[in-house]
């Protein structure tokens, strides 16, 4: 399932995938894979992404029914 919340939070901060990847310490393709739902990140990476975007885990990674 696509992670549109991550994509919109990133876009809201006017960050490219590469910029977010550099800030988090992963490759651009990893951010792309998370946004596309192709990769399920570890909790450690989820927390790093949330800290950079100033959001909570629920804001970005909680799937609502």
């Amino acid at each position, binding site marked *: 399932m696509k992670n549109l919340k991550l994509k919109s939070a990133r876009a809201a901060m006017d960050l490219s995938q590469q910029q977010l990847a550099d800030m988090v310490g*992963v*490759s651009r393709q*990893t951010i*792309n*894979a998370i946004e596309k739902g192709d990769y399920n*990140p570890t909790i450690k990476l989820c927390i790093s992404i949330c800290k950079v975007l100033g959001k909570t885990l629920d804001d970005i990674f909680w799937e609502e029914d």
Partner: protein
Amino acid sequence: MDVSVSYVLGFVVGLLITMGFFIISSLVRKNKGKPCEYDERQLLARGKAYKAAFFVLIVYLLVEGSFKLVTGVEWADSMTSSFIGICLSVTVFAIICILNDAYLSLKEKPAHCIAVFSLIAFVNLAVVLANYFLKVSFLSEGMLNYHIINFIILIMFAVIMVVFIGKLLHDKKTEKME
């Protein structure tokens, strides 16, 4: 098989120089604070690639060994047939890593990688051409001999480079769309 002492010494020296180069370059990278880092997704993808390469090598050895046992045909000397298996599994590993964006570490640049691949391919092409003009045969006693190894390495790096450049172009296209 007519393997001379000078050939074996040359092989060992070449191997030692290559190992020395990699050890020195990794030490230099460490001192510069540029360790070969992969992120968690890349490490996972590389693990899967290692697994695939391992099974490819197992299947190759089984098929090659069975073929020799059943037919009694020696198609290549033991060093050459082993080397073909190694090249095959390394190619599988590299291609899977490239397709999953796990070949380059976070700090490596594609241009550097292409330059190294081109250099290796060029050196091996030079050896293949030299062998061709010196009329060195790839066959001895009806078997492929070690002279074909450079040709195999050339093919391996050419295939890896084509996949690498293809993926790079594909990524640039999708990056613009994101």
